């Protein structure tokens, strides 16, 4: 428990440093976001002035950041350049991205570990070779290629999944994008599980367990696999960051109105407050997920808990 609180307290400086860095980066982008709003049309000076003042764009960076943080701790995340409250904007989008990430995660976890176990137990066999070849392919191909191909093949031509959008809700609308997003992580999970399992199957304690006359199922499930999952769990924690990066592309292809799309749009529009708001929450989630991963070690291997 003390450990968990400690880890959470570490998040406070991380929170301020990250948000300030992000704010500074968006601030440093070239160009005038207000002028860009109007596209190829001119904006009258009066309108420019009013909008710049409304969004404190004339103030120095540190003042803008101060105003933003002061409002943020009071629960006001400000509004976008088109006047939509940021909190309202993000509300609906978190749900979409969370559903996408969870779908991808479950896919990685279940299919990835499953493939890894099959490959690991039949090392050198056809299944193993197929898993190795398949995962190499998935790792090598960029996510947008996998995405568009899956959309055309499985969504449009075979009509197994919806092509785009969230009309059908979770899980139907999220299956295909979730699989695309999870495919990269899946490949790693499968390989990690395989390697780790192969090593552990040769370990002394597995031989001991076998010698005791335990059934094969129990030896693999209870002893070998459990130990083999430690690196996999570590990977799944770190992979959360990858999922978010991949979500920008996947949400774009499958037209899911999630956080990834929003980050992309907001950076283009130089909407500092939106970007900072999203990234802050992302950082918090990332810290929490990794905390969970650390706690899970204890479950998988009690020695870690005691140490």
């Amino acid at each position: 428990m003390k450990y968990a609180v400690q880890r959470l307290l570490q998040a406070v400086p991380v929170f301020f440093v990250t948000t300030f860095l992000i704010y500074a980066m968006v601030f440093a982008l070239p160009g005038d976001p207000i002028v860009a709003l109007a596209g190829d049309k001119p904006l009258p000076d009066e309108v420019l002035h009013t909008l710049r003042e409304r969004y404190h764009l004339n103030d120095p960076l540190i003042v803008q950041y101060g105003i933003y943080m002061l409002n943020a701790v009071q629960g006001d995340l400000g509004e976008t350049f088109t006047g939509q409250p940021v909190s309202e904007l993000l509300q609906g989008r978190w749900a979409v991205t969370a559903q996408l990430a969870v779908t991808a995660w479950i896919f990685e976890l279940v299919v990835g570990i499953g493939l890894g176990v099959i490959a690991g137990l039949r090392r050198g066999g056809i299944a193993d070779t197929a898993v190795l070849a398949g995962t190499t392919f998935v790792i090598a191909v960029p996510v947008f290629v996998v995405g568009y191909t899956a959309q055309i093949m499985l969504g449009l031509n075979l009509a197994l999944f919806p092509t785009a959008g969230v009309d059908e809700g979770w899980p139907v609308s999220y299956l295909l994008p979730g699989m695309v997003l999870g495919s990269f992580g899946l490949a790693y999970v499968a390989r990690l599980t395989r390697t780790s399992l192969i090593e552990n199957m040769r370990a002394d304690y597995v031989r001991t367990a076998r010698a005791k006359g335990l059934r094969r199922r129990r030896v693999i499930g209870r002893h070998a696999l459990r130990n083999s999952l430690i690196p996999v769990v570590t990977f799944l924690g770190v992979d959360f960051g990858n999922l978010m990066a991949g979500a920008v592309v996947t949400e774009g292809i499958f037209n899911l109105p999630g956080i990834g799309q929003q980050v992309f749009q907001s950076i283009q529009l130089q909407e500092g407050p939106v970007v900072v708001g999203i990234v802050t929450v992302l950082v918090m989630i990332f810290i929490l997920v990794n905390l969970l991963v650390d706690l899970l070690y204890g479950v998988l291997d009690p020695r870690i808990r005691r140490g």
Partner: protein
Amino acid sequence: MTRTRGSALLLATMLAVSACGGSPAPGAGGQQGAKEFSVGLTEPDHLTPGNTSSSYSITVLQALFDLPVFIDAKGQPQMRAAESVTSEDQKVWTIKLKPGQKFHNGEPVTAESFADAWNAAAYGPNAWTNNYYFENIEGYDKLNPETPEGSEEAPKPTTDKLSGLKVVDATTLEVTLTAPFSQFPITLAYTGFAPMPKAAFADLKAYDAKPIGNGPFALDGEWVHNQKIRVKKFDGYAGPRPAKSAAVNFKIYESRDTAYVDLRAGKVDLIQTIPPASTSEAKRLLGDRFVPTPSGTMDYLGFPVYDKRFQSADLRKAVSMAIDRQAIVDAVFNGAFKPMGSLVAPLVPGYRENACGEPCVFDKAKAKALFDKAGGFSGTMNLYFSNADPSYEQWMTAVANQLKDNLGIADIQFRKIPAADYLSTLRAHKQDGPYRNNWVMDYPSPQNYLQPMWGTGNRMGWESKEFNDLLDQANSAASMEASIPLYQKAEDLALSEMPMAPLWNWQDQAGYSDKISDVRIDAYSPNLDTITVK
């Protein structure tokens, strides 16, 4: 024990996630309703007519609002909410409204509804995008006081009403302009001139998300940002274009490619922009349901006339002649765009095919001869464009190669500028080489091209008193017909000095499903009211 805890955690996460996601609303797919169809859209910025110039917003607003005037497929202004728009001197205009029109909330549409909306748009502190459309109405400067030199803050206006707007009676609005302007009626077809009901002004912010209009369709439910906007037939509509379908679902897409895939999958019924890369496939798959529509948008190559290396009109013409427009259009735009020898788009009344003549026709030998006669070009030629679209870089590269091959300019560099910075760069005259210049038409009049792009304070730094005089004469001509020859003379003048060379005219490519018919998309409107559902 441990195993249960693990799965309980996973289960809890799944439950939490599916709970906050919510279930899809019935009819969200747009296919369930019997007499409704769906239209692919990009997320609009605003839905207050005075505060948006984006084409996505306008697509929705054209369904929600009846403007005083509309433009027919031939580019001619026709009356819609107005009965007539007349003037004796082109300066004081009388707008007579058709009686009996209603807003979606039941309020009557009166002269005041227009005056209120226009005043709000023209009022500087509201900071609405269409503010500058009202600058030729008397009293505009009082609503937009100039910022004093050296001050960051603009003074607060002393009034929020345009003195040039006079409500004579419930159906008569008198507009006084600062100068005679023969094109005024045609400008009233622009979305910025829509009326707004009294109810809007109680909470302008709420109105922006839930506009109340006077058109054939009324908003149905909330604008679900980045997902959908639904409009349904307005039963109280008494205007000239009642809706043929029961409802339209606008489905919002992030990418055109995805929208196109959804059209093929039958998930969306109409999209207005098929990606150029899919042109040939779309033609094959859709047949008659593939609709190319000419657009009012033009690309130009501007020259920095204030830079002494570009002061010779012959040099500028030589550059124009050295560009093979057709070859670039074929290579970059799949042949969909139209090479231009005129400053205005083909759909604009008064357009003349190849008004430019020789200087806009590709001719390598003549270009080189003229280039040498003008003294050639020394040093680095910088080409400017923004990073807003990858095709800009493609055609600029083609232009650079042609200038290298045809004129022998050895040193050409690209200056690719962030989109957010591009217009301020042009405005501040920071470009020292030819640059991409683009114009999206607001209303089909030569004036809409010539005045903002070649008139006073233009981006090229080109100044011609004769040109400005011709525009003034045309603007105060007795009628729109009488103004056209004068605009043409101004166009000829601008072409003969070539401060900016026309390149090509854009074309949109729409496509629709076999579920709908009577699709009459033109350059001015998708005319959603005409569409029937099979």
